[in-house]
C-alpha cells in the first residue's frame, strides 16, 4: 500500500498515471455540516491504491464545493459521504445542481448512514436515487464494492 506522508485530512499526492489511458479522477468528501471524516478517509486511500486520482475535500463540505472541484479536476465521479443523518436535506437537489453545472455525465455515488429513523433499505435507496444519485450505498459498504462498481460504470472493467 502506498502510504502518503501527507496529513490524514488533505488531498494525497497524485498517484502515477496508469500506463494506458487517462487516470480516472474522483472527487470525494463528506457533505453539508457533516464532520465525519474517517469513512471518507478510508475510501480515499482505497481509491488511490486502486489507481484513481482522488480529489479529497475532507468533511463539512458544501455541495457547491463538490461541484466546483469536479469541474476543475474534470472528475469522472463524485463520491459523497453523509453520515450524520441529515442527508435527506443536504442531498435533496444534488443531482439537479450537478446537471445545471454541466456535470450530467459525472457519476454520482452516495453512501454513509443516510437517514435518522430505521427504514426499509429499498425506500431509502429509491429516495436518494430520486435525488439524482446513480448509486446509493447502505451503512458500512466496503470501499472495494464502490471501486468495482465505478470501474464497471466507467467502462474500466466488465
Amino acid at each position, binding site marked *: 500500500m502506498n*502510504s502518503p506522508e501527507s496529513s490524514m485530512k488533505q488531498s494525497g499526492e497524485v498517484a502515477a498515471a496508469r500506463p494506458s489511458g487517462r487516470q480516472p479522477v474522483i472527487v470525494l468528501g463528506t457533505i453539508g455540516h457533516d464532520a465525519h471524516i474517517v469513512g471518507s478517509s478510508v475510501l480515499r486511500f482505497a481509491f488511490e491504491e486502486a489507481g484513481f486520482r482522488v480529489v479529497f475535500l475532507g468533511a463539512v463540505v458544501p455541495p457547491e464545493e463538490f461541484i466546483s472541484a469536479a469541474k476543475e479536476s474534470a472528475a469522472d465521479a463524485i463520491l459523497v459521504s453523509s453520515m450524520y443523518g441529515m442527508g435527506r436535506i443536504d442531498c435533496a437537489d444534488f443531482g439537479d445542481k450537478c446537471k445545471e453545472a454541466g456535470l450530467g455525465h459525472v457519476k454520482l455515488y452516495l453512501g454513509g448512514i443516510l437517514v435518522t429513523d*430505521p427504514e426499509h433499505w429499498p425506500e431509502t435507496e429509491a429516495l436518494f436515487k430520486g435525488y439524482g444519485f446513480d448509486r446509493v450505498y447502505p451503512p458500512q459498504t466496503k470501499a472495494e464494492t464502490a471501486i468495482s462498481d465505478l470501474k464497471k460504470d466507467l467502462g474500466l472493467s466488465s
Partner: protein
Amino acid sequence: MLSGIDLRMKQWDWDYFLSERRKVVGLWPTGKQIESPDSIAEAIAYHKAQPAWKYASLRNEKAEKEGRIQIVPQVGHALVEQTVDHIKHSEDLSPDRWYVLTDTYTRKSEYAKAQDAVDRSRAKGFSYLNGYPLVAHGVPGARAVNEATRAAIGTDNNDEDARLPWEFALAGGWTWGTIKSIEELIQHSRDYPVDKNIHNQQYIDRLAAHFTENGVPILRRASANLPGWDSLGFKVTVALLEVLLSAAQGVKWIDLSLGIGMNLLQDVAAIQVLRKLSREYLDQMGCNDVKIFSWTYFFLGDWPLERGQMSGQLAWNAAVSALAGCNGMFIKSPDEASTTPTAAGFREGLHICGQIVRLIADQRLPDSEDLSLERNMMELEVRSIMKRVLELGDGDFAIGGARAILSGALDTMFSPYKFLKSKVKVVRDRNGALRYLDHGLMPLPNEVIEYHRSRIAERERKENTTAGVNWIIREATWASRSLAEEIAARE
C-alpha cells in the same frame, strides 16, 4: 485560525456577561422567552423547586458515596413528543440522567432550518433531525422534556456557538451539559476561529457558575468525546484544559469524562491520570472546592452492524467503565451503527450495561506494574503538553490552548478542522492500546515516544508487518467488521 479577540482564563465580569447575553437572546425569536433581565432569576427559582434527584451534581455525590455506577443513555428527536416518548420508554429502568443531543442545525446556529425541519417532521410524523432542536422548542419544550422523567436532563449542544441552546437548557431546568472549549473545532468544524469558540464556552461556564453561586449546582461535563482512534494522553490533556477553563469561570461541579479506547489498562490509566492531574491543577489554581467525578464515554469509533457483535462491544465498554471504578458511563445503543438511536435500542443498551454493572459491582482492576507503567507514561505526556500550552499562552491556558491547536502542540489524525496540523498518526499495539506512530509536533518526552515505539514494534514482530498508514486504515474498521466476513477472508 484566531479572530484576535481578547481571551484570558479568568472569570468574566457579570456585567460583561449580561452585555453579551443581550446579543445572544436576540439570535432567534424564541429568545424573547428569556430576554427579560428577570428570566435568569425565574429559571433559578424553577430549579430550586426541583428535588435533589433532578441534579446531576447531587446524583454524582450520592452515587459516589454509595459506590454505585451511574448509567446515562442518550436521546434527541425533532419533536418534543418524540423525545418525551423515547425517555418514557425506559423510565422504569431509572437511568440517572438523559443526555439530550441537539440536532445539527441547532448546533450550527441555523435556527431557521431547524424550525423548518420541525415543521416537516410534524407534518410527516417522523424525525427529520438527528437531535432535539432545543432553541426551536424554547423554554416550554425544555421544561416538558425535563418534567417527563425522574432523571437529570442535560445537553450535549456544543458546536461552535452553543450559547443560546444552553440558555434554554438552563431555563428549562436541565442541570448539566457538556464542555467543549478545546475539542469542539477539532471535532466538528471546518474553519471557525478557535479563540471565539473558547470565548463562547466561557459564556456558558459563566452562566452555569452564576446558577451555582445562587444555590443551583449545575454540572459541566468535560467530555473529550474525541474519536476512538485518538491517543488517550491527548484526550486527557484536552479534558484537563477544559476542566481548568470552566473552573476559572466559577464552575464547581465537573465530570471528567473520557472516550474509551477499548484497551482496559490504558483506559483505566487514563481515567486515573485525568483524575489525579485535574485535582492537582485545580488545587494549584486555588479551586479546591471544585468537585470532580470520573466518567467514561463509550468508544467513539466504528461500531458493528451485526446485533450480537454490537451487544458484545457495548458490554465491553461497560465492563471497562465499571472495572475502572468510574462514577458513571455514557452508553450507546445497539442502533449506533445504523440510525439515530431508537427508544427500544436504548432500552436494550440500558439492559446490557445494567447487567454488566450488576455483575461487576465492586470489582475493580487491581493496581499492577503494567498499569502503573502505563499511568506514568501518560502522566509524563500530559504534563509535557500542558507545559507547552502554558508557554504558548504566556502563562494563560485559554489563549495557550487556542495556540496549541493551531501550532500542532495539540494534534490528532482525523479532523475536518482546516487549521489543525493533523500530522499525528496513532495505531494500535498488539493489545489494542493506542500508540503514537508519529507524534507530529506534539511536545512529547523522549521516554514516552520510545515507550510507544517499543509497543508498536512488538506488534510488528508478532504480525511480521511494518506499521504505517495501512494499519490506520485497517483499524478504522477494526471493531465493526463482520466476523463472518473476516473468517471467510481468512480461510
